[in-house]
């Protein structure tokens, strides 16, 4: 394997998609120090970020005599399983990975993590304001981000040119036209990891955002009602796309990061585009085994607007990684988060190519032009929506993924999807 570049839980989830059972065994502790000062669980368990985090811990300890940091790097699924176990025992780690949103809310309600609003207030302004939103619950802050990114269309410029498409589509109607042109040119328009479901939910979520605006999404969560025009309309627009049969053969069972999956199809030039987060180029290269991936043929465009929709085409959908502070942690743990949030640390993380920074001023360390494009789009974003399967309670998020997958398979209508999600939300 080449060097895997892991940017998010999704990347980890899919690249390590060989099964939770196998990797759970590998998730053993890697102690950075003898003294049991701060217990730190993160999920950057591979290069390039694993050594970077370790170095930060070393440096912090060197500056703070007597503070020991014990690091436990875990694979994504193993992390979730193990965190569930320790939180059930009421004993969360001092610093642990979080994606914010619905899961963090459940942890907050169970009293497992600290309200760090006041502790972070003195230095919070070094962070991009949007980046902290997923970690705010009822106006209080429960986590500090270290990475942020967004989902958009990655496309193969050469294949677009072959189909005679000169510019990326601006609206959904244009998008459908692009898909049609690619199909008539004999090119698979879209690669989709239908087997993993979460990539499919991006379409539904983005369409709902474009149709109803970001408020429609938060309102739905508040009212536990997804049978609104935004979500049903999203299902209808998505059904239009599905009717064009735009996905690669066997997409229903396809994985994301494995050699036969979505990212590999893009990296090999077998499909013209994919809707994916900022980690996509790295995974394309990794999964296809093509050195450098698509290189300069790879382009990025934001999700198109929907005619008559209330959402702005500059509203961004995505997420990032952050750290929460366990309920029994000492103030040193928060000081450590401050330490790793400094612009020089973020630059070092960004330099690995695996990171989009949350600290203002670290953006210029981004070298890859595509990642720079994502960062720019994100910086100009009018609104930011967390992935639905993170933003909502986990049961609701999974229901979204499962039902949208059935919509994409042609087994459910837009109304049925909206109703099923509503039933779970009201449970």
């Amino acid at each position, binding site marked *: 394997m080449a060097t895997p570049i892991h940017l998010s839980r999704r990347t980890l989830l899919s690249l390590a998609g060989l099964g939770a059972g196998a990797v759970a065994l590998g998730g053993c502790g890697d102690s950075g120090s003898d003294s049991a000062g701060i217990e730190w669980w993160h999920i950057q368990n591979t290069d390039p970020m694993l050594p970077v985090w370790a170095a930060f811990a070393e440096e912090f300890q060197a500056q703070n005599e007597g503070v020991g940091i014990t690091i436990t790097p875990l694979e994504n699924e193993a992390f979730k399983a193990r965190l*569930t176990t320790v939180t059930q025992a009421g004993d969360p780690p001092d610093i642990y990975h979080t994606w914010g949103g619905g899961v963090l809310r459940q942890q907050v309600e169970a009293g497992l993590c600290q309200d760090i609003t006041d502790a972070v207030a003195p230095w919070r302004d070094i962070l991009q304001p949007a980046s902290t939103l997923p970690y705010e619950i009822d106006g209080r802050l429960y986590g500090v981000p270290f990475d942020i990114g967004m989902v958009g269309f990655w496309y193969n410029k050469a294949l677009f040119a072959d189909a005679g498409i000169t510019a990326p589509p601006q609206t959904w109607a244009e998008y459908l036209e692009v898909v049609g042109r690619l199909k008539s040119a004999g090119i698979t328009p879209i690669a989709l990891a239908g087997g993993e479901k979460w990539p499919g939910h991006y379409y539904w979520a983005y369409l709902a955002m474009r149709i109803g605006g970001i408020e429609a999404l938060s309102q739905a969560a508040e009212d536990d009602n997804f049978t609104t025009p935004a979500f049903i309309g999203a299902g209808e627009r998505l059904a239009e796309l599905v009717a064009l049969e735009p996905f690669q*053969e066997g997409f229903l*069972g396809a994985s994301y990061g494995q050699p036969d999956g979505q990212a590999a199809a893009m990296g090999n030039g077998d499909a013209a585009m994919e809707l994916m987060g900022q980690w996509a180029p790295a995974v394309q290269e990794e999964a296809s085994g093509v050195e450098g991936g698509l290189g300069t043929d790879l382009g990025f465009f934001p999700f198109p607007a929907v005619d008559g929709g209330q959402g702005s085409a500059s509203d961004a959908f995505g997420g990032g990684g952050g750290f929460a502070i366990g309920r029994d942690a000492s103030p040193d743990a928060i000081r450590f988060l401050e330490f790793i949030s400094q612009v020089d640390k973020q630059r070092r993380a960004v330099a690995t190519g695996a990171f989009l920074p949350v600290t203002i001023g670290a953006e210029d360390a981004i070298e890859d032009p595509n990642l720079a494009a994502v960062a720019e789009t994100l910086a100009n974003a009018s609104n930011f929506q967390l992935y639905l399967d993170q933003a909502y309670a986990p049961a609701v998020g999974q229901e979204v993924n499962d039902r949208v997958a059935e919509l994409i398979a042609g087994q459910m209508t837009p109304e049925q999807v909206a109703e099923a999600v509503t039933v779970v939300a009201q449970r």
Partner: protein
Amino acid sequence: MDRNLRRRRISDRITIGLFMLPALVLFGVLVVVPILVAAYTSLFRWNGFGGLPTDFIGLDNFVRLLDDPVFIGDLRRGALLVVLSVTVQLPLALGLALLLNQKLRGRAVYRVLFFAPYVLSEVITAVLFDMVFSQNRGLANHVLRLVGLEGLSSTWLSDPSTVLYSVFLVMTWKYFGFHMILLLAGRQNIPRELHEAAATDGAGGWQIFRHVTLPLLAPTIRISMFLAVIGSIQLFDLVWVLTGGGPLNASETMAVTMFQYGFRRFEVGYASAISIAMFLISLTFAVLYQRFILRRDLEGAMTTMGDQR
């Protein structure tokens, strides 16, 4: 009764008790307590976070189970796997066992080869077959192309209509060797004289099989069947790694559904209800099977041992 004898019996009991204590404690802590905890949490709406569950909902989780299309589907798919195991996998194992009982060049090598998949873990098996069934680079489609049967090549694991059969194929590959070895051992326990006597009486190959081999092999077949059924009901690793239960739940088993609810949706109460349902189904089957089908074997085993040795 002799006082010494009585004292010895008591001290025997104490000894037995002491020797059993560690096992009983382990069994209690690792088996009984978790079952009780799962039974308890199955009565709550609970996301698994922090402390004990508080939102008591009685048997609602179980009522919900009966109305859950995925769970009902699990039962249907489980039943199909059981039927396939018994009608395809076991006859295959039996055939090979009888074949490898013949004088055959390289017999020992075949036995090892056929048994080898059983030694692999389910996870490794699944990773292996993930590659075999891979659409573009997979061995399965490649071989079909090579022998000119391209029409039969398939998207195996990506098509809801073929995925469960593909999973069953992998199950069979992994487990037929185990059943074959069981049956082979059972076959070798049949005294040669019986076959010789039957042959002397003029019985043909089929008649000998039908009236001598099969009846005497029946106890082994029944044990084999029992293991195949219980294995099918509890199937998890293989499916989880190979397909994750997809596409669209088409290969999902009860254990996969339980994991999905427990660790993906954080509906630990509901997941507990699924685990209890699984436990009850397995237990009911095991008790009924032992009561009605294995009983004669258990009794019979004692007498045959008495007769033969």
